[in-house]
């Protein structure tokens, strides 16, 4: 009979660990060879394979006394299969009452519709209970089954792990395909070797302490994001985490501390898609022998360690970068704040210049030859280093100098001094863009000659928050060697609000043949328009000024340039000579515009002050001249008035004298002898 054959197979329970959804038969292979099952069940049982395809030949008699059906077996079967009972696919909705079978050891209720575990408390010798594929919602009714070793509750509707307190001998617990959200109430199962929680609703793994015998833990197809406590499982060898939600190795970091783990799966997790997945896992879990069901070779391990080192380097590098960026941001904020305060002070004409100076404690930036940014090097451990750096930075730094490839950025007026530094020729040669932010334009003007010398290739100038208010200020840019592009940010530069500012720039700096202003290309028409608007100004400025004024204005400008150079480079006569030659050669500038200069307000006032003395002197000098002239004039007029009278008197006197010829002759001769 078929039944007979089926029954003659040995006990055959295999836990199939494939990921096939439909047929998740729970079978647990108990061979003699398997060391994982150290003879807890007798040999006798092991050899018997218990196929679960058909149920036993049983009779279910419904009793009128209770709502539960009562099970009856023929006495032959009772003797033949005294320790096992299969009620598979019996369309049971409740557990029947089983009388007279108190020595049952294996009970099979697979593929039924049972909703509650009941009526089995009398089967106190039960070792294996199979309730796979039912409708059980709660684990209950098991408190008397102290010998139970195998409990199969897969594919039910269990929401919570509970009521397992007395099952201290439990060896295999299968709860796959349920609705469990939390691992709990299993810490006393110190003999548990296999725990299957696949296809549940677990979001994290913890609370695993106490499972001192656990060798296999199946957590496939959950929603796990992090794993903890696995290092508390001293015997765990196989851990299946496929198809979960693990995205970083940090969330499973406890695995690194588990020395017993040799086989792990992560496939189907976000982490497995990462480029650093394999080598990070291998690097952190040296004890692994198998990953995602594939053996790990020596080659792979070596590669892993190499790659892991590289990762470390990169991370350190990017950490350093972000540290620097943070510092930069803070400094710039600080500079901006200082700038705003300064602007407000100027606007309200407060005179606390002294206070401002003492506020901004100048922190001299150290130059590190290897890096190109002006920060002190951070050498401490990165995490604590970040904190320290940020604290130290808070209010002290008041300016920032940054070189980024071809751009030199200066924030805050203190940064202008950095132009004095010894820039390497290579670095300085690469700079094509110079950007000024939070610095008064008048201060920048003083520094332009230095810029010309130190950064000869700077072709693009950018100004933001520099207080450009007058068209005249653009005149100062004419002294540079060449500008291709000019960017004036509207923020902090009111001059941009003027309708004509671009044309004026083009006009005054026409000798540079600029390509772009504020990002827009300069067209031929723009240049012509500029010339049309201001050409006459240039004409007037050059041809209508008297010669001496031309010379004095031009000479003045050159003298000023020299002054800056002399001040900064007193000890290098070679460079000064070079400058001499440079400015004597007409550097392509339209001479007719050269008289349009810009003197910063303070210099202008200084000059006027100097002139005051001279003016006073001139005034007195002229007054003296006038006095002299008026005196002479008066005398002249007086003479005019008196002259007629005087003339008559002269004539009268002469006539009287000569009236008597003889006495006159005597008188004359007398005079002659007297003379001798």
């Amino acid at each position, binding site marked *: 009979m078929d039944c007979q054959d089926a029954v003659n197979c040995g006990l055959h329970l295999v836990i199939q660990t494939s990921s096939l959804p439909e047929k998740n038969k729970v079978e647990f292979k108990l061979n003699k060879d398997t060391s994982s099952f150290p003879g807890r069940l007798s040999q006798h049982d092991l050899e018997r394979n218990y196929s679960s395809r058909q149920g036993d030949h049983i009779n279910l008699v419904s009793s009128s006394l209770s709502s539960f059906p009562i099970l009856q077996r023929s006495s032959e079967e009772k003797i033949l299969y005294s320790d096992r009972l299969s009620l598979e696919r019996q369309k049971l909705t409740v557990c029947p009452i089983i009388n007279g079978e108190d020595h049952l050891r294996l009970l099979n209720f697979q593929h039924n519709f049972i909703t509650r575990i009941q009526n089995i408390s009398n089967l106190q010798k039960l070792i294996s209970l199979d309730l796979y594929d039912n409708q059980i919602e709660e684990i209950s009714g098991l408190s008397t089954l102290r010998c139970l070793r195998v409990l199969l509750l897969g594919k039910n509707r269990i929401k919570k792990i509970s009521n397992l307190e007395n099952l201290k001998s439990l060896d295999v617990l299968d709860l796959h395909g349920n609705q469990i959200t939390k691992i709990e109430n299993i810490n006393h199962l110190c003999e548990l070797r296999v725990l299957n929680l696949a296809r549940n609703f677990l979001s994290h793994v913890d609370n695993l302490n106490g499972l001192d015998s656990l060798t296999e833990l199946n957590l496939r197809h959950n929603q796990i994001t992090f794993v903890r406590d696995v290092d508390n499982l001293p015997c765990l060898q196989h851990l299946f985490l496929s198809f979960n939600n693990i995205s970083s190795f940090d969330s499973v970091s406890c695995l690194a501390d588990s020395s017993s783990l040799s086989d792990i799966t992560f496939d189907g997790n976000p982490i497995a898609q990462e480029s650093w997945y394999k080598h990070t896992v291998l690097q952190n879990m040296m004890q692994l022998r198998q990953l995602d069901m594939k053996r790990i070779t020596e080659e792979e391990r070596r590669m892993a360690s190499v790659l892991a080192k590289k990762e470390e380097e990169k991370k350190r590098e990017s950490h350093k970068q972000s540290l620097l960026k943070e510092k930069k941001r803070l400094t710039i904020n600080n500079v901006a704040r200082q700038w705003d305060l300064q602007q407000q002070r100027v606007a309200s004409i407060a005179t606390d210049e002294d206070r401002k100076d003492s506020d901004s404690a100048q922190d001299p930036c150290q130059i590190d030859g290897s890096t190109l940014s002006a920060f002190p090097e951070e050498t401490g451990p990165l995490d604590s280093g970040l904190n320290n750096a940020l604290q130290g930075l808070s209010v002290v730094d008041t300016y920032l100098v940054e070189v980024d490839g071809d751009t030199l950025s200066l924030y805050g007026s203190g940064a202008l001094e950095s132009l004095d530094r010894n820039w390497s020729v290579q670095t300085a040669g690469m700079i094509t863009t110079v950007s000024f932010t939070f610095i008064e334009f008048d201060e920048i003007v003083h520094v332009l000659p230095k810029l010309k010398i130190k950064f000869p290739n700077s072709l693009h100038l950018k100004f933001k928050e520099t207080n450009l208010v007058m068209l*005249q200020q653009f005149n100062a840019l004419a002294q540079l060697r060449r500008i291709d592009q000019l960017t004036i940010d509207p923020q902090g530069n009111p001059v941009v609000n003027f309708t004509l500012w671009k044309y004026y720039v083009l006009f005054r700096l026409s000798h540079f043949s600029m390509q772009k202003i504020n990002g827009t290309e300069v067209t031929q028409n723009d240049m012509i328009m500029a010339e049309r608007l201001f050409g006459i100004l240039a004409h007037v400025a050059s041809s209508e000024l008297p010669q001496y004024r031309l010379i004095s204005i031009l000479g003045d400008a050159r003298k000023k340039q020299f002054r800056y150079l002399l001040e900064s480079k007193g000890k290098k006569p070679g460079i000064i000579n070079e400058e001499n030659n440079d400015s004597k050669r007409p550097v392509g500038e339209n001479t007719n515009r050269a008289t349009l200069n810009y003197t910063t307000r303070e210099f*202008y006032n200084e000059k006027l002050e100097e002139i005051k003395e001279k003016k006073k002197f001139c005034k007195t000098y*002229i007054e003296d001249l006038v006095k002299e002239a008026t005196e002479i004039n008066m005398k002249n007029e007086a003479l005019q008035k008196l002259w007629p009278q005087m003339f008559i008197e002269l004539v009268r006197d002469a006539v009287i004298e000569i009236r008597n010829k003889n006495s006159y002759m005597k008188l004359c001769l007398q005079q002659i002898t007297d003379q001798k």
Partner: protein
Amino acid sequence: MLSPERLALPDYEYLAQRHVLTYMEDAVCQLLENREDISQYGIARFFTEYFNSVCQGTHILFREFSFVQATPHNRVSFLRAFWRCFRTVGKNGDLLTMKEYHCLLQLLCPDFPLELTQKAARIVLMDDAVDCLMSFSDFLFAFQIQFYYSEFLDSVAAIYEDLLSGKNPNTVIVPTSSSGQHRQRPALGEAGMLEGVEASLFYQCLENLCDRHKYSCPPPALVKEALSNVQRLTFYGFLMALSKHHGINQALGALPDKGDLMHDPAMDEELERLVVRSKLHRTPWQHRAKEPGAFGFQRREKQEALERVSSASVPTPYHYRWEPRE
């Protein structure tokens, strides 16, 4: 030379009235400042050039404000220079804000005070929002009145205030310039609600003022003309009328009539030449070979520039010749 009026005044006052001393002082001061440069080509030549430039009206270019406003002739020259240099801006039709006009003024006179420009703007805008756009001619004529007659206007403002508040104008003493400025701005409410002051009364006070004047003021007859059409007027209305009056403009002699404001054929010719040259200068630059002299343009540029500079002493054609007043 020996006219009776001249002999009527004592010498020093005569010289002062003609501002001869101002120019003499300034000349000597300039000489002192630029000693090294001037000694190269002789003091006589310097004085020639200086007074030539005073005659032509180019002496005020790029000078400090205290000099520019020192004499009426300086003021007229400055107005003229401003007109000539920036006429093209007006011709282009751009409307600019007060600040921008101030910038243009500063191009010619670096320390020109903002107040004056503001006051001029107020005349144009009738004391409304000072950030409005103004046309070149409006601004220029208003600025002329404000700048040339600034002291006079201060006194007028004081008189107006007094009339508004009902005081008897004949007892008003000419205030000092500082208090005049302080009172210059009549409260917005007042000017709006009242219709200013009665024209004839106002004119009488002005006549008295002109009689007592120490500084220049517009010819009273022309002022009367300006006031003839109105019964009442506000302060800014009065100024606006002044600025638009052709006769006063002509009497000043700085600027041409409004209709001719954009015309200056000689300068236009000059401008065309400049534009053409800049066109030529630019295109070869863009395709420029490494050596500069390849197209020969740059060389020509230099020569012409040098020629330009040396022609400073040649007087330029001067269509609207400034007639000496009085």
